[in-house]
């Protein structure tokens, strides 16, 4: 009898997502679902959804959820985790959400070493609102608000969130991963699982940045978007483990 070697994670609902064709949010959701399944966390999970394309994550992952105001997910997660320390609490946030309007919340949650996990989806753009430039938009990258390309003179420099958080003592784990090739997907899965494990073991704030394609607002086919991510994003946002606690699985 044939054995099923790959299928939908149990913690994900059997529904169609609203995401555009080739959007990496769908892959990242699945990795979250797989990690929740493997660590048997779903029944005690409270997710915190952002504002952005992934706001509807609560319709796709079958756990409890709260939807936070724009950028405030780490503050909401802090309150939930402190009130209910036995729950597993994660946020899922875009780069507009986390690195623009939510800059204060993420930095201070990290500095406090809150025992929460943050999945940070960096697609270098405001996806949901139609492709405006984000703090993570690359120099030279065009967007609706930088139609001739971002310039450092006019728009400043893109923020490297992992590098910035890595100056703080609070975080237990900081990694940046990508999901544009199968090998990167497998690596990203390990990082997300490890970040969840950090929280389970009470090690404090764990953070995974996932470089993610937004083919629609980048104006590319999904396959070209993967190449752009590889050639343009990764040189500025290197995929690596910045901090891993000793002994974590």
């Amino acid at each position, binding site marked *: 009898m*044939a054995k099923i*070697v*790959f*299928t*939908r994670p149990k913690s*994900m609902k059997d529904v169609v*997502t609203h995401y555009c064709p*080739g959007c990496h949010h769908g*892959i990242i959701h*699945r990795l979250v679902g797989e990690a929740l399944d493997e660590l048997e966390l779903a029944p005690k999970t409270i997710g915190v959804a952002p504002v952005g394309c992934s706001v509807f994550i609560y319709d796709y992952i079958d756990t409890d959820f709260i939807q936070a105001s724009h950028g405030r997910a780490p503050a909401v997660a802090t309150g939930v985790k402190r009130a209910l320390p036995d729950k597993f609490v994660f946020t899922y946030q875009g780069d507009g959400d986390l690195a623009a309007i939510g800059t204060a919340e993420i930095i201070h949650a990290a500095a406090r070493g809150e025992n929460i996990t943050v999945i940070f989806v960096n697609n270098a753009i405001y996806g949901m609102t139609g492709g405006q430039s984000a703090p993570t938009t690359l120099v030279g990258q065009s967007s609706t608000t930088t139609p001739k390309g971002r310039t450092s003179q006019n728009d400043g420099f893109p923020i490297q969130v992992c590098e910035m958080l890595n100056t703080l003592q609070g975080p237990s784990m900081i990694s940046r991963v990508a999901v544009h090739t199968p090998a990167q997907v497998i690596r990203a899965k390990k990082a997300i699982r490890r970040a969840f494990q950090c929280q389970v073991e009470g090690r404090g704030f764990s953070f995974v940045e996932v470089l993610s394609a937004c083919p629609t607002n980048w104006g590319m086919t999904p396959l070209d978007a993967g190449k752009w991510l590889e050639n343009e994003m990764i040189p500025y946002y290197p995929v690596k483990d910045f901090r891993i606690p000793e002994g974590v699985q």
Partner: protein
Amino acid sequence: MARAIFQEDRCKGCGLCTAACPTGIVVLDASRLNSKGFQPAIVTDKEKCNGCALCARMCPDLVIQVER
């Protein structure tokens, strides 16, 4: 025998699976549209599927189940 089963009506035709398949047997079917209006991904030569599930790992829409 390994097989990748595509839930075709869920496919958005993004093509990420086509680049992931090491044996090159996953393609978008340019001859028709699925119920969502996309050219769906299909397996051309089912005999050659080795069940590696790399196509499924790249699919953002959980279209693919793999059996081995």
